[in-house]
């Protein structure tokens, strides 16, 4: 996921390079309040750990190997702000010492792997684990968090790539940087992380959390969730309100063509597709509730209803896991590490 120089145009890398600075300042301030002078060696070691974890080859299916990023694991251990700083430092060292990742793209790489991944992963972990997680629930939460974190970061990288043909092209429409439109870049990045890197990240994070919970559970202490979750809900509400922007995009997302679009492209509808196409009729096809005439409002309502459904299912699964956990599992005392 390390973006080298050359793939992103100046509009994108400059914006992300500038955007990362205030976030680093906020993260440093937050860490200073909690970790004080101890932060230097702790951040250095966390950054070194973040770097080293990427050097481990993890065996996966078919004799191949993959590696984990570890940003969500560090967020679980130290909190998301500390993870932001330590993963950023690891990325800067990778770029300047090992030549891995571009110099102009440092901001983009940090946004994806040092902000989006640890923050999304951390809050998913908090959401699924709850305040008093038992052993099994904690491990499950870590796996889900790592998976969601890395896939979200990959989609963000896909969006950055996919914006390039729109932002910078010649008069004849030739892309000047990454040439793949959103309809190709986002699915490409999402699929490889959904199918390959996401499971690797999840298995590694679950495994390490399981070992730490068994050997040194003090490392997995968490801060009470009230305040950070308020921020999560606020950010989530903003995202839901911004969903109508999606209606501005032209065409259909890559790989999500309907039968008629496939017919227009190929000249026929594959028999299996035609047969299976009518098996299920969705309640809100194309995110357009039939009872709302305005497409923008309809898109927004679909986003609210869909999000509520996902949250409801997640909450129900969380309750189920909590019920199955041993009630006598040791509780985790609060700490200021985040």
């Amino acid at each position, binding site marked *: 996921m390390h973006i080298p120089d*050359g793939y992103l145009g100046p509009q994108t890398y400059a914006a992300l390079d500038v955007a990362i600075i205030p976030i680093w300042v906020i993260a440093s301030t937050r860490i200073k309040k909690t970790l004080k002078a101890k932060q230097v060696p702790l951040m250095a070691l966390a950054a070194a750990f973040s770097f080293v974890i990427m050097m481990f080859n993890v065996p996966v299916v078919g004799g191949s190997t993959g590696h984990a990023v570890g940003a969500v694991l560090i967020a679980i251990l130290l909190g998301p702000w500390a993870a932001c700083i330590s993963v950023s430092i690891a990325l800067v060292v990778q770029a300047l010492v090992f030549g891995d990742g571009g110099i102009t793209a440092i901001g983009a790489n940090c946004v994806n792997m040092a902000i989006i991944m640890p923050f999304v992963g951390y809050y998913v972990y908090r959401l699924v684990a709850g305040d008093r997680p038992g052993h099994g629930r904690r491990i499950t939460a870590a796996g889900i968090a790592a998976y969601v974190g890395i896939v979200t970061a990959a989609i963000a990288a896909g969006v950055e790539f996919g914006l390039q043909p729109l932002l910078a092209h010649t008069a004849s429409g030739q892309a000047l940087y990454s040439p793949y439109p959103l309809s190709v870049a986002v699915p490409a990045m999402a699929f490889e992380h959904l199918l390959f890197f996401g499971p690797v990240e999840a298995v590694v994070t679950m495994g390490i959390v399981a070992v730490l919970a068994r050997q040194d559970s003090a490392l997995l202490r968490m801060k009470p969730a009230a305040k950070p979750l308020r921020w999560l809900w606020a950010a989530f509400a903003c995202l839901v309100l911004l969903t109508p922007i999606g209606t501005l995009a032209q065409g259909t997302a890559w790989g999500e063509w309907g039968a008629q679009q496939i017919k227009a492209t190929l000249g026929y509808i594959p028999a299996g597709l035609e047969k299976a196409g009518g098996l299920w009729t969705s309640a809100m096809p194309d995110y357009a509730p039939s009872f709302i005439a305005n497409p923008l409002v309809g898109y927004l309502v679909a986003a609210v209803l869909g999000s509520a459904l996902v949250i409801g299912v997640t909450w129900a699964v969380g309750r189920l896991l909590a019920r199955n956990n041993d009630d006598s599992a040791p509780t985790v005392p609060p700490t200021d590490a985040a």
Partner: protein
Amino acid sequence: MIPALAHISDAAPRKRSGPRSLARRTADAIGHAVAEVLENDELASSAGLMQSLDPRIKLVSVLVFSVVASFVHSLPMLLVLIVATMALAAASRVSVASFARKVWSSAGFFGLLLSAPAATAWITPGEILVSLGPLSITAPGLVIATRLIARVAVGAGFGLLVVWTTRWTDLLRALSAMGVSDLVVATLAMTQKQIMSLLRTVENMHLARESRMLSGGTARDNRGWVIERMAFVARRSMKTADDVYDAMLSRGFSGAMPSLVDLHATTRDLAWVIASVAACVLALGVDRMVFPV
């Protein structure tokens, strides 16, 4: 001089028929990375053009070169910039062959893989040059893919020039002089040291496992072992952070970071700045006026 320790993994104590085990492959990769950093430091200490520059000026100028390169769109000018990176490498007493191999084996190769689909009619419709069924290569597609590869190679070349001609301590001094907070610089300095230390630990773990095993082991066993070792490294990192902090306190650390700024620009640096500005203006001027896209 590179310490003999850096070559442990290259010693290859015994040869086995068949593919190397996972432990051996990982140990070799880590050993190679460590040796490369030490070699870079040695290279950065030699007497070449880029090594003789004030690190602040070098860092800023390479950053400016990278930004200017991102504004260059014509293929001829991008090729000129690729040649320029190699010329700078040669002037810095870096083997041009090694430099080119490094740039093209990593950034160039992956750039080629990633840009190849863009050359086809599937992504970029246009005049077909070579017909390969549904994957016909088009003229505009070929231009787009070549431009992307050239751009990535230029960026990687400039990045590698910094990595190969600047000692880590000089880079930290440059960052400090450029206003980066001493706290961040100190953290960066400590991070690099701890990375090397942890890499050595991880390499030794893998070598020890390799030496104890008669076969490569199953994927499940290896996965379990790798995860267990990662957890060990996590615990050790946290423990070492406490130890380092205690050591800092015992040496009188009061929270203030020592400044690393001790740099003086010379007339050579001034000449370099003038030449760099002229080169950037020339590159952008030629790109826009002679080869407009």
